[in-house]
């Protein structure tokens, strides 16, 4: 499904992924699958109030997130990029804290993580990526040291006007942005064909003069290679790239959703295609990159990790109420300070 890249600079010098890297990609996907399934269970158990599963999107998320250089790049997620976060090595308790309802943006440090706060407005952060990327152009740093911004959004978000504005601005300014679309077939209950005119989001890129890649989003290696090429294109000063990873949202939109109201299990089975994890596993086995013992170990590691994250999440207490007031401004206003004082006086919590 991968179309031929029309990139001014592709990463031709990059060596193919080593066996060790391929195994690492699988381990990451296994961790993400385990943590994702666990989070749904935690919601059912009352440990967290809600969660937006990424089941089926492991290849798209891990493959792209694995291409990020954390010393200079910056990622702008929405609320369904747990796999990207994991691939980038985020503190996963800090990440999951948003779903524990501890703090909207999550408790991880976005500057150190190179991963912007979790964004709940669909397409809200796409423009931020353009601004950040233009900042790289203005920074005066030499080409090789400049970062690339990668912004994630879905087929649903692609309908937002901000996505048009972002692509147009990025193209006019030649900003180093990778627009990474996960087309997972569904925006809650509305299927892609009723969401995206013209058949694909990638096709729109031509209107802005932006090169685009439509890639099999369930093939982790294909996703990774496309992302790596896009980064090389951006780093060489050629402006933005659009990647549309075709995948499938196997689960509900969120733990509050009921897909039975808009699609049948049979439709899911037919449309979802092959499980990206199982597919990659069979490839690694057939190519002799990994053996059954490796997969058993990966499974065990994923389980251990999930238990550690769950322990961390369960231990997370509510933030002090004073933070409601103290984190609004860098320099709080007198009005806000007096509200904080009144709250403190009248509250039983402090």
């Amino acid at each position, binding site marked *: 499904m991968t179309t031929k890249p029309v990139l001014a600079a592709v990463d031709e010098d990059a060596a193919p992924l080593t066996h060790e890297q391929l195994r690492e990609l699988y381990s990451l996907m296994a961790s993400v699958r385990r943590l994702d399934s666990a989070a749904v269970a935690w919601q059912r158990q009352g440990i967290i109030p809600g969660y937006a599963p990424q089941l089926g999107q492991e290849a798209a998320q891990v493959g792209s997130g694995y291409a990020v250089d954390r010393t200079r790049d*910056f990622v702008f997620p929405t609320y369904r990029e747990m796999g990207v976060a994991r691939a980038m090595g985020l503190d996963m308790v800090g990440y999951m804290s948003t779903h524990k309802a501890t703090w909207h943006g999550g408790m991880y440090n976005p500057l150190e993580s190179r991963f912007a706060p979790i964004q709940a407005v669909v397409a809200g952060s796409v423009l931020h990526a353009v601004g950040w*990327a233009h900042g790289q152009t203005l920074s005066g740093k030499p080409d090789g040291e400049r970062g690339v911004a990668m912004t994630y959004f879905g087929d649903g978000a692609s309908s937002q006007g901000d996505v048009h504005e972002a692509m147009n601005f990025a193209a006019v300014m030649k900003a180093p942005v990778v627009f990474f679309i996960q087309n997972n077939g569904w925006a809650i209950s509305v299927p892609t064909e009723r969401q995206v005119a013209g058949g694909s989001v990638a096709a729109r890129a031509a209107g802005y003069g932006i090169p685009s890649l439509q890639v099999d989003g369930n093939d982790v290696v294909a996703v990774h290679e496309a992302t790596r090429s896009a980064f090389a294109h951006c780093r060489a000063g050629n402006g933005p790239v659009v990647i549309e990873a075709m995948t499938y949202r196997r689960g509900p939109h969120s733990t509050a959703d009921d897909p039975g109201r808009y699609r049948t299990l049979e439709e899911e089975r037919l449309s979802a295609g092959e499980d990206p994890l199982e597919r990659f596993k069979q490839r690694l086995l057939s190519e002799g990159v990994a053996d059954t013992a490796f997969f058993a170990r990966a499974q065990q590691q994923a389980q251990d990790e999930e238990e550690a994250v769950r322990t961390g999440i369960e231990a997370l207490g509510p933030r002090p109420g004073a933070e409601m007031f103290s*984190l609004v401004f860098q320099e709080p206003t007198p009005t806000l300070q007096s509200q904080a004082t009144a709250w403190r006086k009248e509250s039983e919590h402090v």
Partner: protein
Amino acid sequence: MSEAATALSFAPGPVTMETEPVLHLSMQQALNRALDEILADHPKTVIFGEDCGRLGGVFRITDGLQAKHGEERVFDTPLAESAILGMSVGLAMAGFHPIPEVQFDGFAYPAINQIVCQIARMNYRSRGTLPMPITLRVPSFGGIRAPEHHGESLEALFAHVPGLKVVSPSTPHDAYHLLKYAATRPDPVIFMEPKSRYWQKGPVVVSTATPGQAMLDAGMDDGGSLTGARVAREGRHLTLVAWGAMVARCLQVAELAAEDGIDVEVVDLRWLKPIDAEALARSVGKTRRAVVVHEAPLTSGLGAEVAQLITQHCFQTLKAPVERVTGFDVPYPSGDLEDEYIPNIDRILFGIQRVLEYRRG
């Protein structure tokens, strides 16, 4: 500074007043000069928006700045307000201090998601790790016979949003100092420029020292601080509270009232969030009567907030309920009806009369 003035070739020669140079500038010139100095002093500052670069903005506030500071510091964007503001967020995250411009007040609406959901909340969402030192310049209010959407008063809307600060200067001097102050603070500020006052000239004390102190030293009272309200005219009988273009009108009203022996104090609020409640209490505590004047529609306007603050602080001493003289709850009218909409001298005088004639029981 004199070099900057020469380069921009509009500022008259400085007149020395004690040790501080006092210039005679329009608000447009004062704002331009402030931006010029901000760019010179703060290398991370960037200015952008529609027609801000080569043209110098439709009101010429950024005139000459691109030529002087370069196309990377002062640049034109495509025509999309949401992107201008969304891009400001990303630039701030990358360590820049953006001063974006929305060409006219009514065009802030297309950017409202980025202003309310992103700029105002990013510091909070990121737990203080991603501050938003963004000063959004908005040519504001009516009075210039402009087309639809070119004369809105959005202060109540912005002031209602947690995470934003809102300020509006009424004089060239305040415009210069408040902009320099706002642009170097770490929080987002909506800077509402009264477009009908862009071309009136006034004295501007130019100083790199603490501006409040410089003002006091120069014998000009600005309350000693850039963070609070300013008493524009002292009086004993009644306080008029206003901001932006309405301050000059209230000063006119005060002169007319003085002919009838009514001594009106005029408080220029300047900061619309946070509101300087202490200054209101000081003034109305003395005069015991207050009228709030604004161009924005009455219902849920900022006048209600001001009236409540005065009532809360001065309930015991108030001689009459706080009056509001404002625009009406109608869409901003065409130029022909503008003078009927914006509080005029007569309507403000009627407001004063209602308060003075009020009798309890």
